């Protein structure tokens, strides 16, 4: 069996430029499979408020931006999208409404997220449908459920959540974007017990565990790939002597599943700062990290063959 090349990324958080870089990385490195491991929607809407003179004003990272014409508006929208946020042209009245009406705001978020995910699915289809490259796009714990049908609708892009999919003729992959509970109580945060049940259900369906891939968004507990800044009860970072204290925030259920089943490969994300690899027994677990807000793509290139992980490396661009 020839080698299979996987390009894996995670935590794009709506960054349009990172997604486009991912597509290019898939092409540049002739990927057999492109896997996006969760957290694909953005965190903020940037209102571009129409002024009396027809220009639009927006604030991005506390800097004021004014778009005076259509082309400047497009550029500003592109800049906002590249850092994972959602540009939204609004009038003064609409802006006031969004500021006060949570339901309207939630609807706006939903609509913008669906629009961007649709665009991404279309892009992936445009560039890879009909080729040998498989494309897996999985929502993560930060992502609302409303985007799931958008991915499901595609006859090319696959949402691997809860399923056993084939990365190639030999390697099955099970995936979940659900995570153990986080302080922010995200849409797909569940207690460890529930997560363990989900994992058990999926692992029971795998035929060849030693060649299996676990694409679990949340990393295994107490490893190099789950280290995050420690937070206090007010969700503030705990500092000591000017330096942040780190803590393990991964999932015990994920760790237990990996320890028990010893698959070939673990693909994880969730903790942007924890770009690392860890070996749990024979399983290579990796987290490529994320710098989506800077427009920097972090991904992992993994070559697997019929027996093992031949090689891996982190790419950044």
């Amino acid at each position: 069996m020839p080698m299979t090349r996987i390009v894996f990324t995670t935590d794009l958080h709506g960054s349009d430029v990172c997604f486009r870089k991912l597509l290019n990385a898939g092409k540049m490195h002739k990927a057999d499979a492109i896997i996006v491991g969760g957290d694909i929607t953005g965190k903020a809407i940037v209102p571009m408020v129409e002024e009396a003179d027809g220009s639009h004003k927006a604030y991005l990272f506390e800097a004021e931006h004014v778009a005076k014409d259509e082309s400047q508006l497009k550029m500003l929208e592109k800049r906002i999208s590249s850092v994972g946020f959602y540009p939204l042209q609004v009038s003064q009245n609409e802006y006031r409404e969004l500021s006060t009406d949570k339901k309207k705001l939630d609807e706006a978020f939903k609509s913008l997220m669906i629009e961007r995910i649709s665009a991404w699915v279309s892009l992936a289809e445009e560039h890879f449908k009909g080729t040998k490259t498989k494309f897996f796009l999985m929502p993560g714990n930060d992502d609302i459920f409303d985007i799931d049908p958008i991915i499901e609708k595609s006859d090319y892009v696959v949402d691997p959540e809860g399923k056993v999919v084939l990365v190639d003729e030999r390697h099955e992959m099970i995936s979940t974007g659900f995570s153990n509970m986080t302080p922010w109580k995200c849409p797909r945060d569940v207690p460890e017990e529930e997560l363990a049940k989900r994992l058990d259900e999926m692992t029971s369906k795998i035929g060849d565990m030693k060649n299996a891939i676990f694409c679990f968004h949340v990393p295994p507990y107490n490893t190099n790939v789950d280290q995050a800044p420690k937070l206090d009860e007010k969700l503030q970072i705990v500092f000591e002597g000017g330096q942040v204290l780190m803590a393990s925030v991964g999932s015990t259920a994920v760790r237990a599943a990996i320890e028990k089943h010893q698959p070939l490969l673990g693909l994880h994300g969730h903790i942007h700062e924890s770009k690392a690899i860890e070996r749990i027994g024979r399983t290579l677990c990796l987290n490529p990290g994320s710098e989506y807000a800077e427009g920097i793509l972090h991904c992992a290139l993994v070559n697997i063959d019929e027996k093992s992980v031949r090689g891996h490396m982190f790419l950044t661009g």
Partner: protein
Amino acid sequence: MAEKRLFVRTTSGLIRIIGPFGAMVFGVHCISLSSSGLIPYAWIPWLWPGSDLVGVLTVSMLLCLLHATTYSQIGSIYPRSGGDYVVGSRIINPGIQFGASFMFTIFTSLTAGSLIAWIPSSVLPSFFWSWGVIFNYPPALAWADWIVTPTGVLVVGLIFVVITYVCMIMPTKTVVRILSLGFFLGMLAWVLMWISYLMAPGHETFVSAWNTFAPIKYEQVIPLAAENGLTYGPQPIWLMTMAGMIMGFWVYYGYYIPNFFAGELKEAPRTLLIGMWSSLIVTWAVFVIGAVLLYPRLMSLEWMAAEGYLYYNTDVWALPFSTFYANILWPNPIPVFIIMFGFVYTLINLAMTYFFYNSRIFFAMAFDRALPESVAYVHPKLRSPVVAMTLCAIFAAIGVALSVYTIIFVQFNFVLFCAIVQLIPVSAVIIYPWVRKEEFARAPRLVRFKVGTVPGISIIGIGTLLYLLWMIVSTYLFPAVGGLISWLTVGWFIGFYVTGLVIFLLMRWYRLRKEGLDIVMAYKEIPPL
């Protein structure tokens, strides 16, 4: 009118890490309140006879601010572990930069050893001598005599290498506590030294104290140095001060170290700039206050030069250390002990910072698969990169031995090698706006600001480049620091560089053959489709 706000969902947080204070503490430790607290007074006056010490410290600091700005920009372009290695490898060429960074890492690891050797060769003898003479305790004098012997420096130096290594493989929380304590201890030591200097109303008091405790009379120092070859003051002050900038660069070396762990910094551009600048300004202030209190109040620069010259070039008794001057002026066991303990402690902190940033460079190289994966191994319980730290410790131990049994080429020529190595990433940032246009357009403000139509990063980069070139040229023009640049010096430079390049090429070949991966891909830009 739009307010300054976004509409933000409740999601997992965007979290970054070390802030400006942490970066400043790190920079101060790497500059070192102890090592660099002794160098200006013990070396500069005799290495560049006639130079003005405050002038050297001030002009150097100002130029280092320029260099610090460039390095803040370097750390901001790709804020992750590895610093200038990441920038140079991705913008210039991976192999060329790898060779340079490899050489840099080896040399600074060796230098960490030679800095650790300062503890037994300079700091502890000063302490024991002070203790023995001031408090009439002869065994301390015997310890002082033994500890400066080659055997003493080697044995005690190696013990401190082990201490540093053990400190660095501890969990982060413990390392942070050690460094934080060191910052305050170091500042306390300096405050006590200033108080000691201030306790002497004038020159006569210092002379009297010196003549009480030192075996060589104050009046004998300058004539003895002249007899033994010191020629003082024939060159213009401005020229010697310019030459002294080599040592100024060495004194302040370390402020830019946060760029090697920029990936762990909160709001990297702001933290880097504030952290680096503040560490420079804080240490400048500490050293200049010391200088102003010492000369010409208590001694002349010529005398300071003579004392340093005697110590480093003759067998005549001398102890040209700012700590000793403080001890004899305030011969009280409490401040004497605190000062010495503070200096020894912060020297260990200095070595710790070298171990720390070298491990980050090793990490970056291992992540790029240009070094074996085992180099990036992190101990599961200690959460410490024990393999990388062990490598640093081995090189540091070699550095201790080299500093004992060879001329201190590692330290002095370090400036030359450091400056040459930095030419690559600094050149990278000068051309960055043109070779990575799209990235530049999205870069943080610190990186992408323009002066008119010209990118500021290029202007500042050119200034830094000229400063580095001056460092290189002046080590040739003014070989007082490490002697003439010999074929041995060039040989070491080329040898280490070529070794790094060969390792890179071998790893590339190995990975391609065994793993089907070309490590050069790790350095390539990935443009968006």
